[in-house]
């Protein structure tokens, strides 16, 4: 029963991947090659590649440096800096991009795109590296110092190698996000695979061309995902032994105090100050012209409704898969779990494209329904739910069931009195993460939402693309407001993952 359920969920999660593969095979090698080997594809590949590699490098450097300063030096106000450095996660990249592009059109193009996405995504490196720094056994650094290494050589030869898994993992995650990024890059007029697929689909509904672009994109994503899985496999050695690690005495900043403080201020100013300032500016300007309270409220409500149902559905689907993977380890359980994990490599645009095509061919009745939109959310955000659920279920080891049974509690009573109270916090965290992801989702919602269904993200989008910046601002502000708790949750998750 559990196996059947998980199998079905895994199949659902694999629909987009099946679609891309089957489609590519069905149009034949020659035509596929003709569609792929075009100057346009080469240009997109170069655009996407440059941006992904550049952004991964920059985020790795910025994220690691910021994490080291906050975790290892006597920087004043470290707690506040920590929050400020993570806060850009609460601002979706397309809102950040809006903040910049509505101020100056000079950020259009490669340089601007690189700047904006780096500022949006460096926390994805900062968080795991900071957590790894906290979790490092200080004895290792102390040993290096006692062996005559100075602070710099200690960092380079002892600390940095141990931070590598966190750093690589974070950077690869940045790459995956970037491959899927649509809104920010479209606003900055920088063409990548995702924006090209969208344009192709919107302008001509050109099936084969859009789908072949999607195939190439999925290939790139799978590559990054496999790298990320490899890095995660080696992640274990960061933490030795149990208990609370002693913290290393923090380093005095000395003469570098002013440059470090200036650098951090610049980073936070660019990543947070510019988009927030710009948003505030447009809110003031916009409210003088129009402030459609009724529409804002109804859009917020429909967004919240979608978020709640999407979260509930995703958690329900993830439950059997996670339970099977944690409690009944087997080849099949691992397979179903991995299948859901592949959604990490599927940009919203590909999921949407796949669902549109598959539904039109197989079950036209569900095309343009809320159900299909929810299915897309479930496929895309299953991995997030899985991470939380797995962590939650490891809080309820089977030995506790044995003890409860021995004490006279049957299966139902054991679930109610032991398992549920233990996994409830993780369940809640997972649901919250999915909820927040749904409320800020743009790409799949644009393609799949039934006519008349608007979310904050789509409303913001239709206004900002028609250069109605003032009208777009209230929606952006509401998105940020709703996203704020996500920052808190993500920070907590990252902290917890190092203690396991």
């Amino acid at each position, binding site marked *: 029963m559990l196996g059947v359920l998980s199998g079905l969920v895994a199949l659902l999660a694999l629909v987009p991947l099946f679609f891309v593969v089957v489609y590519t095979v069905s149009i034949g090698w020659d035509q596929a090659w003709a569609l792929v080997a075009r100057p346009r594809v080469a240009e997109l590949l170069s655009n996407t590649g440059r941006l992904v590699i550049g952004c991964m490098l920059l985020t790795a450097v910025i994220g690691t440096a910021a994490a080291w300063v906050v975790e290892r030096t006597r920087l004043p106000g470290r707690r506040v800096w920590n929050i400020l450095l993570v806060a850009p996660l609460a601002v979706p990249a397309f809102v950040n991009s809006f903040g910049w592009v509505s101020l100056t059109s000079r950020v259009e193009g490669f340089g601007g795109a690189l700047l904006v996405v780096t500022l949006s995504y460096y926390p994805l490196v900062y968080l795991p590296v900071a957590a790894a720094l906290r979790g490092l056994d200080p004895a290792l650094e102390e040993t290096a110092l006692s062996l005559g290494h100075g602070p710099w050589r200690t960092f380079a030869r002892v600390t940095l190698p141990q931070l590598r898994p966190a750093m690589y993992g974070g950077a690869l995650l940045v790459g995956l996000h970037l491959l899927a990024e649509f809104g920010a890059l479209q606003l900055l007029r920088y063409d990548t695979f995702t924006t090209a697929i969208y344009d192709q689909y919107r302008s001509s509904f050109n099936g084969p061309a859009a789908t072949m672009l999607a195939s190439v994109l999925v290939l790139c994503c799978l590559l990054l995902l496999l790298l990320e899985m490899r890095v995660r496999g080696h992640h274990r050695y960061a933490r030795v032994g149990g208990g609370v690690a002693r913290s290393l005495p923090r380093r005095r900043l000395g003469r570098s105090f002013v440059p470090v403080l200036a650098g951090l201020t610049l980073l936070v100013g660019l990543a947070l100050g510019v988009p927030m300032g710009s948003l505030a500016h447009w809110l003031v300007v916009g409210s003088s012209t129009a402030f459609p309270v009724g529409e804002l409220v109804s859009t917020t409500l429909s967004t919240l409704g979608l978020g709640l149902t999407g979260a509930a559905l995703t958690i329900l689907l993830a439950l059997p898969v996670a339970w099977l993977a944690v409690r009944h380890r087997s080849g099949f359980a691992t397979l179903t779990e991995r299948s859901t994990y592949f959604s990490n490599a599927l940009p919203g645009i590909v999921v949407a494209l796949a669902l549109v095509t598959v539904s039109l061919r197989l079950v036209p009745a569900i095309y343009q329904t809320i159900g299909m939109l929810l299915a897309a959310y479930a496929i895309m955000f299953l991995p997030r739910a899985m991470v939380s659920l797995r962590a939650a279920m490891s809080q309820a080891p089977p*030995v506790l069931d*044995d003890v*409860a*049974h*021995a004490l*006279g*509690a*049957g299966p139902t009573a054991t679930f109610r009195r032991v398992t549920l109270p233990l996994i409830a916090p993780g369940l809640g965290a997972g649901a919250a993460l999915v909820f927040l992801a749904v409320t800020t989702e743009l790409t799949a919602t644009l393609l799949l939402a039934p006519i008349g269904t608007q979310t904050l993200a789509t409303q913001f989008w239709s206004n900002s693309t028609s250069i109605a910046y003032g009208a777009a601002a209230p929606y952006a502000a509401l998105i940020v407001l709703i996203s704020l708790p996500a920052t808190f949750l993500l920070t907590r998750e990252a902290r917890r993952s190092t203690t396991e």
Partner: protein
Amino acid sequence: MTALTLRGVTKSFGSTTVLHGVDLDVPTRELTAILGPSGCGKTTLLRLIAGFLDPDAGTIRFGDQEVFGPGRSLPPQRRRVGYVPQEGALFPHLDVAGNITFGMPRGARRKGTRVEELLELVGLPCAVSTRLPHELSGGQQQRVALARALAPSPSVVLLDEPFASLDAGLREGTGRAVADALRQASATGILVTHDQGEALSLADQVAVMRDGRLAQVGTPKQVYDAPADLDVARFVGGAVVLPAVVQGGHATSVLGTLDVPVGATQGAVEVLVRPEQIVLTPAGHNGTAVAAPGAVPLVPGAAGPTATVREVSYFGHDCAVRLQLAGTGEQVTSRMVGEDAPAAGEVVVLRVRGPVSVYAPVAG
């Protein structure tokens, strides 16, 4: 009176048979230790008794009630067993009182008196009842786990290596407290362990398990002094095994003439000497023993074999002395009180105290 009876209990996982027809009787109100190396099937046996697993064949009876037999398997929640797993496994979301009352009927959960009673039984102050499991030390967690298991007055308490995760210093005290609490509660206990000292010192009955079979069941003294075979002998303590020839009530070996029990196998055999049976006395110039002050007076002319001390491992309370016998060059180990430790290089005379066990030689 027997609290628990196992007959022909067999269990396989896939193609590996873990238990080969185990028979065991556990007397009421006693603590029985199941002693064996890791992987011998002892934990599986415990899980079968608890009902977490079903045997492939055999019967399990609690008193006169059959809980597993052909066509019948009582689920664990209806067997009334107390279960104390490794590391306690307290429910992390419940405080100490919540854990202890978990298995009690709903009405009884509110009354605090039983909690106090049980905490006192396991030697913990009442103040801990509001603490959460992570605020307790390892030893305290184990005691609470026992109190929780005892709360519903189970017919049998099963303890699965409960002290393995504790520090050496805590292990003995916690073990003692747990055994005392079981005795005071008049509970029947089964303790699974791989630690010989724990089994011998805490249990009333020891069942030595090997490769899914019970090799010997007896009192700690029987198991140590008269092991069923040499493997059991080596597992429960230090063993010096020597070839010997038995004639009548004596055996002749490189350690001289040894006493053997009445009715021992005659002829060529192997004998088991426990290291603490080998007594050393300093040798005089002519190779005979010098009567040390306080030592057992020697029979004149009954000088034993001599040996050279090769190495002394000093533990404080006692010591292990590795000896090389003069002539044959064979190595044997002796154990004695720490203050009697000889110095390396010293020449000593050996004597074996008390009877030794005799085994038919292994073929080949």
